[in-house]
């Protein structure tokens, strides 16, 4: 067997299942993230574990465990604050005018991980509740990881997690102490619903969204996967909706279906150009 057969096997699995491109210089990530799984299967070394899998093949359950273990679930409340300031100061007030007739807003957090992003958005609405009285606010958080979505639904966070990004005033307003954890208030939890969703698989999300946040996920995808996801985001977004990407991500050179807002980094509007449909990665 080739010396890197184990790495190649894992790399192929991640590309096919999650669109993630695993560069060889990320071998340290494989060692750190798969260690517990390898030990759980009786292997001292991750390398031996992967070589074994390359020889014997990977069953469905183990494939899911491998992908989940390799995902980067790093997130925190009000991460990179600027997108939330932008929502609060500009996008939501605009939508309040644009949707005055229907009094309904739909928001999709497309890589919600353990839920901090959609809950942060729900807090923005709660903090301006008088302006949104009588409105239907539908916030959907999705993630490929079932474990992350289970945690997100629980609404329970560690002391460390609530101290990253949340001011003490927001903690007091939107959380309750629950044993050693902090629980998102029932009012905030009621504003968000979660579902497991692989961005490379079929989407069952219903009506178009007014805002789609897809932050810090496209950066891990190969070019074709980015095009495919952006094409489908375009279809899932209202014609006057807004797309929010991560600070290190862009549509430039990937899709002409969106135009950047030069005043607000990471903010994009649909151009009205119907993007071509690409062959789906999965």
């Amino acid at each position: 067997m080739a010396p890197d057969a184990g790495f190649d096997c894992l790399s192929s699995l991640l590309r096919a299942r999650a669109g993630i491109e695993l560069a060889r210089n990320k071998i340290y990530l494989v060692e750190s993230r798969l260690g517990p799984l390898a030990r759980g299967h009786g292997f001292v070394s991750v390398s031996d574990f992967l070589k074994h899998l390359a020889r014997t093949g990977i069953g469905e359950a183990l494939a899911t465990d491998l992908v989940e273990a390799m995902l980067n679930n790093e997130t925190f409340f009000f991460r990179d604050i600027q997108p939330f300031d932008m929502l609060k100061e500009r996008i939501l007030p605009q939508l309040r005018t644009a949707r005055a007739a229907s009094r309904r807003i739909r928001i999709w957090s497309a890589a919600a991980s353990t839920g901090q992003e959609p809950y942060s958005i729900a807090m923005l609405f709660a903090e301006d509740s008088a302006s949104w009285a009588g409105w239907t606010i539908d916030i959907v958080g999705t993630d490929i990881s079932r474990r992350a979505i289970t945690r997100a639904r629980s609404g329970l966070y560690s002391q460390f997690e609530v101290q990253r990004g949340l001011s003490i005033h927001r903690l007091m307003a939107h959380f309750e102490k629950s044993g050693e954890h902090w629980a998102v208030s029932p009012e905030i939890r009621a504003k968000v619903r979660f579902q497991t969703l692989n961005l490379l698989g079929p989407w069952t999300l219903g009506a178009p969204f007014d805002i789609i946040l897809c932050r810090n996920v496209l950066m891990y995808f190969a070019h074709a996967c980015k095009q495919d996801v952006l094409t489908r985001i375009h279809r899932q977004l209202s014609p006057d909706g807004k797309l929010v990407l991560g600070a290190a991500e862009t549509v430039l050179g990937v899709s002409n279906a969106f135009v950047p807002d030069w005043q607000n980094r990471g903010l994009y509007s649909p151009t009205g150009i119907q993007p071509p449909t690409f062959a789906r990665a999965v």
Partner: protein
Amino acid sequence: MKSCLIVDDSKVIRKVARRILEDLSFATEEAADGRDALEQCRQAMPDVILLDWNMPVMSGMEFLSALRAEQEGKRPLVVFCTTENDMAHIRAAIDAGADEYIMKPFDRDVIEAKLAQVGAL
């Protein structure tokens, strides 16, 4: 350069906090209890005070009440940094005039995030 007074009866905590704050470009001073802290504030008011709750001689809450009662000088930002981690203590601290609240244990990320929250960075 902004200044921060670290008030904690634990020498180890003061040392760890000092290292983090100096890495965040703060000039730091230390006090082991509230009374020492109050005397230092009267000499030179810092921009930020990182404040423990339970200390001998004068507690963090007693210090904060005395500090906020002072009529003269600039108003420093006060960030409680304590093992007290229930809502009643948090509310009491904010009601007494604290600007932020850190629940121990802390690390660099937490201190940096909390100082950013109050605009101290």
